[in-house]
C-alpha cells in the first residue's frame, strides 16, 4: 500500500509543462561571435552567440526561433552575408544549408545537399563545399536563395576562400583520400587548376601579402599510407605555385587554422598539444605552444586579436569556449552548445 501511495504522491506531483522551446525569440545579430556547435550526432547541432564585449551567451538561437526544430545534425559552420545568416549542417543522412534572417534567426530557406561543409560569398553569390566522397562546389544566388550552378572538385571538400576573383577549395578526401586544392575562376565558374599538397588539406587563410595558406592534416598511423606529417603550405595565388611549406607535427593532427588581424600570424593547434603561433616568415616554427590544452577548433577575434579556443568536452555535455590574449593569457571562458568547433566573428 505504501508503494502505491508513494507512486500516487509522485503522480500527483507532476504537472504538465509548457513547451520548452519558444517560437518567438527576439535576437538580432549585429556583432560578436556566432559559434557552430556540431551537436551529439545524430541529434541536431546548435548555434550560440557570445557578445565578446559583455560576455553574454545565448545558446540554441536557431531552435528557439524556430519552435524547437533543429538546424540539422552536425552544424559544421556558420557564416554571415549582409542581412542573412547561413548555417551549414552535414546532416544525419543528407545535410542542409539553413538561411536565416539575422534579425530573428527565423528560417528563410532550407536547401538540401549531401554533405555540406563551408560557405563563402562573392557579389550576389554564395559558394558551398559539399560531399564526403566525390566533391562539389555549389553556386547559390544570395538574392533568390536558389542553386544556380555546380562544379566538381576533389574529394571531401572542406573550407574555401575567395581572393582576387579566385575560389580556393581544400579537398580533404572526406571518407576517401585526397591531397589537393582546387582553384576556381569565379568569372567563368570553371576549374582553373589543381595543386597537389600533402594528405588532407583542411583549412585556408590569406596573409597580409595576399598569399594563401593551407593546413594539411596528414594521415594517422591506422590509415593506408599513414602516418604522414601535418603541414602548412604557402601558395602564391597569382602564379598558383607553392612558395613555402612547413612540417608542423609527426602524424595526423592539425585541422583548422586562424589568422590575426594584421594577417601575419597563423594559429594552428594540435588536438592534445595546445595552440601554436606561427609567423608567416617561418621564424616561430619551433616555438612551444602559447596555449596548453586540448582543442577542437580555434578562431581569432579581428577586433582584439584575442584567440578563441573550443573544447567539445567529449561531445557529451556543453562545450567550452575559452578566450586568450594573443600571447596566451587566459581572459574568459563560456559554456556553449554540444560540440562547438569554430566561430564567425563580426
Amino acid at each position, binding site marked *: *500500500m*505504501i*508503494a*502505491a501511495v*508513494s*507512486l500516487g*504522491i*509522485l*503522480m500527483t*506531483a*507532476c*504537472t*504538465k*509543462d*509548457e*513547451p*520548452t*522551446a519558444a517560437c518567438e525569440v527576439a535576437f538580432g545579430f549585429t556583432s560578436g561571435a556566432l559559434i557552430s556547435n556540431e551537436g*551529439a550526432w*545524430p*541529434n*541536431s547541432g546548435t548555434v550560440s552567440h557570445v557578445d565578446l564585449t559583455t560576455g553574454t551567451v545565448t*545558446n*540554441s538561437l536557431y531552435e528557439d526561433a*524556430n*519552435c*524547437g*526544430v*533543429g538546424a*540539422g*545534425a552536425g552544424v559544421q559552420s556558420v557564416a554571415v552575408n549582409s542581412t542573412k545568416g547561413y548555417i551549414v549542417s552535414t*546532416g*544525419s*543522412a*543528407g*545535410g*542542409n544549408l539553413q538561411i536565416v534572417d539575422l534579425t530573428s534567426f527565423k*528560417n528563410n530557406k*532550407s536547401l*538540401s545537399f549531401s554533405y555540406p561543409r563551408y560557405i563563402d560569398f562573392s557579389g550576389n553569390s554564395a559558394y558551398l563545399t559539399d560531399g*564526403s*566522397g566525390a566533391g562539389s562546389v555549389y553556386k547559390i544566388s544570395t538574392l533568390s536563395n536558389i542553386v544556380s550552378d555546380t562544379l566538381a572538385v576533389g574529394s571531401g571538400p572542406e573550407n574555401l576562400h575567395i581572393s582576387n576573383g579566385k575560389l580556393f577549395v581544400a579537398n580533404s578526401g572526406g*571518407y576517401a583520400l585526397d591531397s589537393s586544392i582546387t582553384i576556381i575562376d569565379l568569372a567563368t565558374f570553371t576549374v582553373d587548376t589543381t595543386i597537389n599538397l600533402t594528405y588532407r588539406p583542411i583549412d585556408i587563410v590569406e596573409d597580409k601579402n595576399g598569399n594563401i595558406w593551407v593546413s594539411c*592534416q596528414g594521415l*594517422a598511423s*591506422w590509415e593506408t599510407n599513414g602516418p604522414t606529417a601535418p603541414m602548412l603550405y604557402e601558395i602564391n595565388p597569382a602564379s598558383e605555385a607553392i612558395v613555402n611549406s612547413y612540417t608542423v607535427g609527426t602524424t*595526423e*593532427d592539425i585541422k583548422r587554422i586562424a589568422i590575426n588581424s594584421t594577417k601575419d600570424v597563423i594559429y594552428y593547434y594540435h*588536438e*592534445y598539444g595546445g595552440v601554436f603561433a606561427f609567423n608567416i616568415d617561418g621564424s616561430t616554427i619551433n616555438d612551444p605552444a602559447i596555449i596548453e590544452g*586540448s582543442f*577542437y577548433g580555434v578562431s581569432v577575434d579581428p577586433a582584439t586579436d584575442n584567440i578563441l579556443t573550443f573544447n*567539445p*568536452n*567529449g*561531445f*557529451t*555535455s*556543453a562545450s567550452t569556449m575559452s578566450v586568450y590574449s594573443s600571447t596566451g593569457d587566459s581572459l574568459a571562458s563560456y559554456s556553449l552548445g*554540444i560540440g562547438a568547433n569554430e566561430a564567425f566573428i563580426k
Partner: protein
Amino acid sequence: MPGVRCVRDKRVRGVLTILGALVFFPLSIFAQLKSSVDTISVVEVDYVHSLKSSTSFDSLIPTSSLKSIGDLLLESSNVQIKQFGGKGSTQSIQIRGFSSSQNQVNWNGLPINSLTLGMFDLAGSSVGSFDKLQLINGSSSVEYGGGAIGGVLDLKNTAHWNKGLDLSFGGSVGSFNANMDRYKFAYSNNRFSYSLLYINEFVKNDYDFINTQVLGKPQETQEHGEFWNTNLVQEVYYRKGNNKVKWVSWLNGRKKNTPKFLNANEASRKSTADSSFRNVLNYTRIIKNSILDISYGYSGSGFNYWDYNDSIFSDYFVSEHFVLAGYKFKYKKFRFRIKSRLERQSVVNSRYVGTPIRTQNFNTAFVNYSLKKGLLLSGVVGTQTSTRDKSLIPIGSLGYKYITSKKIMTLKGNISNHFRYPTFNNLFWDTGGNLELKPEKGWNIEHSFKLEKKNHILKSEVYFSNVKDWIQWLPNGSFWVPLNVKAVRSYGADLNYKFNYRIKKVKLKLNSGIAYTKTTVTESIINNDPAIGNQVTYVPLINGNMSLAVEWEQFVLQYQTAYKGKQYTTVDNNERYALPAYFMNNISAWRLTKIKSYSFLVKGEIQNLLDAVYSVDQNYALPGRAFYLSILLNLNLHTPEKGG
C-alpha cells in the same frame, strides 16, 4: 515538446525515508524472532536463493507468451528498458543505473550478451520461448562472472514430464501491421520430454508521428521500419534414476530495416540482419547428498549491416564455447557448491585487426552455514582470469539470509565485488581499439527484506555500488578511443507491494513498485569533467509501475501504468536536452478457458492507452496508441501412463 515536470525534491526525500525505515526497522526485531526453517536441502545451495533479491515473472508467461521480454519488463518492473522505435527496434535492459553492457542476460546458464557490443538486444525474444524468467537485481559477478554488475536477466527452459502429446497454436495481430504466429509441439512421458517451438513475427511499424525536427512539425508516417523475426526452440530432456540430460537449442533470425532519423533528409536505406544458434547440453546426476552438474554451451551468431546511404557495409561472426561444471554437497550444517566455468570467445570482424580469441576461466566456491534455525550465513570465494588481461581477479561475497517463524519475513544482505571485461569492440576495433584497457571493477553492498502476511507481500531493498575504470569512448583526432575514464557510484532503493483481495467470485490483484536510482560520476581522468557529481545519462531518478487486475471467473481485466522519470542525455545534466518524464498506460482483457485438456486464451490489449507523447531521444519516432489481439489454443491430446 510538451512534457511533464515533477516538483518532488521534498517528496522524494519523504519516500526515501519510508523506504529506509521499511528496510532497517525489521533488523531491530531480528533477535526476537524464532526460525521455522529446520533443514536446507542440497538443492538450496544456490546463490540467488541464499543472497539475492529477485523477481520472477513466471506467473505472467501463460498470458503474455506472445509479448517481447522487453515489453513485459517495461510494464511490470522498475528496470529501465531502452528502446529506439517501434516493435523490433533495439531494446536493451539497464538495471540499477548501469548500462546495458553492465548487465548480463543468461539463457539456460549460457551468457548471451554480445561479445562485440556487450549488450543483449531483447527485440524479438518472446516471453513464451522460455519457462522461467527471472530478474536478479544487483551485482552478481560472483555467481555469473564478468558483466553482471547491475544485475542479471535469467532465462530458462525447463522440462515438463508426463504430459503426453501437447499441441499449441496461436498468434497475434495488431496495429502498425504487426502479426505473429506461434506453434508448439510437445510430447513427454515419465522419462522423456521433447518440445519444438516455432515463432514467426513481422511488424511493419508504419505508424504516424509528429516530426518535431522538421519546420512546421508535420505528421508523417514512418517508413522503412520493418522487422522480421523467426525463432525455433527445441528442447529434449531425458531422465533415468538419478541422471538427467537436457539439450536445448535456440535458432533465431532477425532482419530490421532502420527508419530514418527525424532530422534526416534522405529516406533510409539502412538495414541489419543477424542470426544466432545457441545450444546448451546439460547432464545432472544426484549422488547421495550431492549433485553433479556439467554443461556445454555453444553460441554462434552472425551480423550484417548495410548502409546504402553512406555506402558503409560491415559484418561479423561471433562464436563462444562454454563449459560449466558444478558440484553441490552438504556436510553437517554446511552446504557447499564448487563451480568452474571455461569460455572460449572469438570474433571474425572485418573491422578488427586479426581474429581475436579470448579464453576466460571462472572458479568459485560457495558455502552456506546454518548458524541457527532460519539463519543462513553464506560466502563465495573465487577467481577470474582472462587471456586478454593477464591479471587474476579475486572474487568474494559474504552475506546472510534470515527467515522468521511462519516465514512471514525474509531478510537478506550481502557484500560482494564485481567486474566487467572490455568488449571485443573496445579491444580490437581497427581504429581506436585499445588493448591496454583494464576491466571495470567495483563492489556492492545491499540489503533486502520481504514481508508476507495473508494477502500482502511487501518487498524492499537498498543498495550501494561503485565501479572504477568505467570504460568510455573519447574523441582522439579523427577517431574515438575507449579508455578507462571514470569512477561511478550508484545507490538507491526499490519498494514493491502486492495485494490480493477476494470478494465472492471477484479477485483483485494489485502489484506496484517504485525505484529510486542515483547514479553519479565521482572521478574522471578528463580535466574538469562536467560529468562529476551528475546523474549518469539515460538513468531516471525515479521509475514506478502499478497494475491492477480484476478477475471474475475466467475473465481478467487489467490496467497498468508505468512511470519513467526524467532522463538526462548530456553528462552535465543540461535541462535543455533532458527527456521529460512520462506515464505509459496499458489496458488489457483476456479470458483463459480451460475445459479438461483444452485451454483457450483470447486477449485484447491497448498499449499507450492515452496516446502519450514520449521520447527516448530527439531523433526517433515512437508509436502512439496501439491495439493487439492474440489467441492461443492448447490441446493436450493424450495423457501417458502415470507413475514412475
